[in-house]
């Protein structure tokens, strides 16, 4: 029997998701289903813990208890650790404490429920609020009055966790992928060998593919202002510039990042999505093997780093 990809699709984290495992024989099917179930359970667990749209989540409890130590799930501690590291490495261009600014801008509920109210200025908000972690005690604390949003890293983090859960459930897993709304985590090799093929959606032409990437074990994420728009006339977007506290004025229409894992890919994509092209070029250069495809609102897309593009083939004119 030829290798196959066993895939399940579902909705989670407010978006379309998929998990898939490679099988090599019919006997692998049961193991694949077990691995996919483990991955979906982990995605559900991450959503329950990390969402800011459910008052019962650990993240909401942490934000409500700002200034105090709060016992939280180990997943939230790990996600916060990754977010704090990302803030430091990005020199504040990625900041998980932008939530008050995000809410002031109008992104105060899920996209399905958003209303077109004008943006406000966040009062008394400053970027870089302190986040303290007690990993042994599984506790966290945010500075008084501060609040955390993991929207720029949470899906990538969840994809990595889900992929790890797949591998733990099936030790001989030949290959697998987790797709959380376009934030992707890959392991092993796809059916037929070679590299995983990833279509990069064209933000300027809905439904079209801009480019194709081929990756091994890696993370891929896309961030942009092409979809998550809101407010009167859909004039606002969700990418807050921590330097101003307002939706970023600069930055590309969308940016796709290939990194060592999906957590890294997502926060890098978030940081690059509010960067000028020169800043993005410097950023990618600082974090090899990071690579990116930057799509400006106008003009040709720009490749930064060693992006694993699948080369286009020229169709013979005489065909």
């Amino acid at each position, binding site marked *: 029997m030829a290798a*196959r*990809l*066993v*895939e*399940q699709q579902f909705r989670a984290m*407010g*978006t*379309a998701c*998929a998990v*898939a495992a490679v099988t090599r024989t*019919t*006997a692998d*099917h*049961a193991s694949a289903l077990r691995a996919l179930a483990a991955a979906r359970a982990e995605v559900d667990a991450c959503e329950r813990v990390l969402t800011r749209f459910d008052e019962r989540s650990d993240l909401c409890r942490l934000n409500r208890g700002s200034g105090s130590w709060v016992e939280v799930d180990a997943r939230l501690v790990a996600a916060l650790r990754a977010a704090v590291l990302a803030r430091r490495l990005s020199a504040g261009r990625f900041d998980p404490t932008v939530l008050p600014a995000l809410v002031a801008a109008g992104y105060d509920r899920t*996209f399905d429920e958003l209303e077109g109210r004008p943006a406000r200025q966040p009062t008394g908000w400053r970027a870089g609020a302190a986040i303290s972690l007690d990993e042994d005690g599984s506790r966290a604390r945010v500075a008084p009055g501060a609040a955390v949003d993991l929207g720029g890293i949470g*899906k990538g983090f969840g994809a990595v966790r889900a992929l790890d859960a797949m591998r733990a459930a099936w030790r001989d897993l030949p290959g697998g*992928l987790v*797709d*959380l*709304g*376009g*934030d*992707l985590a890959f392991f092993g090799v*796809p*059916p037929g060998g*070679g590299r*995983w*093929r*990833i*279509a*990069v*959606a*064209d*933000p300027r032409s809905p*439904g*079209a*593919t801009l480019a*194709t*990437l081929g990756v091994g074990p890696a993370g*891929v*994420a*896309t*961030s*942009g*202002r*092409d*979809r*998550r728009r809101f407010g009167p006339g859909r004039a606002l977007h969700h990418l807050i510039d921590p330097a101003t506290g307002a939706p970023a004025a600069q930055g590309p229409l*969308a940016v*796709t990042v290939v990194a060592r894992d999906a957590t890294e890919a997502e926060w890098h994509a978030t940081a690059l999505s509010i960067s000028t092209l020169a800043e993005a070029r410097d950023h990618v250069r600082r974090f090899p093997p990071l690579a990116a495809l930057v799509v400006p609102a106008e003009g040709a897309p720009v490749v930064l780093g060693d992006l694993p593009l*699948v*080369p*286009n*083939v*020229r*169709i*013979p*004119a*005489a*065909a």
Partner: protein
Amino acid sequence: MRRVWAAVLSVWALLALVAVLAWTRPAGFPPAATTKTVVVRTPSGALRTVLVQAPHATTQTSPGAGGGQLAVAPNGVATQLVSAVPGNN
């Protein structure tokens, strides 16, 4: 008589093998990423049939439905679909 018993045992062994195979075979696989053929318009305007290998995943700004089609030639090299217009030439 020995040959009769050998024949009976062979039949039973075959039946057992079929039963094992039927037991281990899953009820049905979900559709995998498969290869199919589509018609694309070449730069010269002519139509050509190419193998299309679906990508394993699409990356995009979430939320939203994903991506378009990728055309992959038999040598495994990919191109974007220029247009797919079967029956319209």
